[in-house]
């Protein structure tokens, strides 16, 4: 007798088609693994790879910069870094100019007269007029003066003054000789000496690469090594005249002075109290 077909017999299906059921289950799990475990990880992995690439590039830059700095620190020529301050100082080289003028004049055997210098004050019209470079990398001091002597000595002076540090240039020359009256007449020269100093602010970040010195600029280094150094001694201590022990406290330490003051105060208080008691 044919049985009436009713509900689906899961038990029979499981018993007879076990492998198919498991296969279906495995395919479902595989699909989940594919979408959740693999495809969804592609974008994050790409992002990680990009991040790794950028970090590696950054690391290479830092490694290069660190190596360059270590090389600079170990370079025996690194003392040139401070020596450049003699050639182009970062301050107005007023004393250096005057010292150079005196030294070169003595060397060239010319006589200096009538010199004037306007070092400028803060925010005055003079400083505004004197402002030189538009990008403010450097500024200058102009020294107007006259020299007199034989023409060849004045030429020698002009040659020498541009060969001492800090770097200076003669920008104006006016030489006259009254040879109508005397063939061997002395020459009189009105000169303007422009001395330069560095004013550019230096900014850098930890990620900025070190600048490279161009080949043309390397030639400058050998030129400036030939300049004569300025002989002005730097004053680093206060030099005072000896006026003796004006207040009776010379060569005493602060602690000793404190003790003396405390003792003096106590004895003054004791004296005051005894006077009040007597009264």
């Amino acid at each position, binding site marked *: 007798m044919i049985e009436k077909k009713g509900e689906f017999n899961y038990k029979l299906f499981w018993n*007879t*088609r*076990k*492998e*198919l059921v*498991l*296969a*279906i289950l*495995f*395919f479902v799990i595989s699909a989940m*693994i594919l979408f959740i*475990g*693999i495809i969804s*990880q592609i974008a994050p*992995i790409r992002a*990680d*790879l990009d991040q*790794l690439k950028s*970090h*590696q590039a950054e*690391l290479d830059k*830092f490694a290069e*910069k*660190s190596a360059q*700095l270590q090389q*600079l*620190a170990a370079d025996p020529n690194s003392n*040139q*870094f401070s020596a*450049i301050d003699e*050639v*182009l100082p970062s301050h107005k080289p007023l004393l250096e100019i005057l010292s150079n003028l005196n030294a070169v004049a003595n060397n060239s055997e010319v006589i200096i007269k009538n010199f004037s210098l306007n070092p400028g004050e803060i925010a005055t019209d003079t400083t505004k007029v004197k402002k030189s470079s538009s990008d403010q*990398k450097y500024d200058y001091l102009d020294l107007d003066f006259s020299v007199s002597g034989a*023409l*060849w000595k004045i030429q020698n002076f*002009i*040659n020498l003054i*541009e060969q001492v540090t800090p*770097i200076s*240039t*003669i*920008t*104006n020359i*006016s*030489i*006259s*000789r009254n*040879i*109508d009256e005397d063939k061997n007449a002395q020459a009189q020269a009105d000169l303007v000496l*422009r001395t*330069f100093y*560095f004013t*550019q602010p*230096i900014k*850098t970040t*930890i990620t900025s690469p*070190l*600048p490279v010195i161009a080949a043309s*600029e390397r030639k400058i280094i050998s030129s*400036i090594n030939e300049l004569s150094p300025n002989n002005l001694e730097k004053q680093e201590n206060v030099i005072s005249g000896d006026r003796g022990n004006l207040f009776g406290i010379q060569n005493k330490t602060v602690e000793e002075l404190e003790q003396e003051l405390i003792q003096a105060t106590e004895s003054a208080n004791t004296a005051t109290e005894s006077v009040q008691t007597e009264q």
Partner: protein
Amino acid sequence: MININFLTNRVNQKGKQKEKDVKIFRISTYVLISLIVLMVAVFAFKLWNNLQISNTDKKIKEYKASILGQETTEIGYLIFVNKIKVISEIYKKRSNKQEAMNYFADVFGDKAEIAGMSYQEDQGGLILQIDSSNVFDLQDVNNTLDSQALRQEYEKLEKSVLTRTDTGNYKLTLKLELKTND
């Protein structure tokens, strides 16, 4: 009534179905295992990436500390380079005035003396006043000025003013354009 026994057919059918199911099961197992292995590989790669990133960040921190420790050297070098650039600019603007002065002081010999000289850097030209004691010396001076050798040295040379003084001297004014070190 004829009885037909379908059992053999059914058994055969069932057998073939089972074989098919086993085959599908085998395939699904392979697929699942492959995908599990692939997933493990993906996560392992991700972990390795994160480790690499972490190592790189650590090295970056070390290098940063090293660079900060050498700040003084870096600043000294930056100042040095910038000052060299400025000095290079200053040198380029300088003209060869001393060379010209020395040249013209000697080129005429005893035929002429330099009576005056004027120079302004912003204009770039040198003005010389030459004094000759007589017309013959002046002629020699003129020949020297027109000579090829001098013109090769100073192409842009102009004779501007010639005067005669009461004492019979001739004063010739020369204007010459100086080259810069550009």
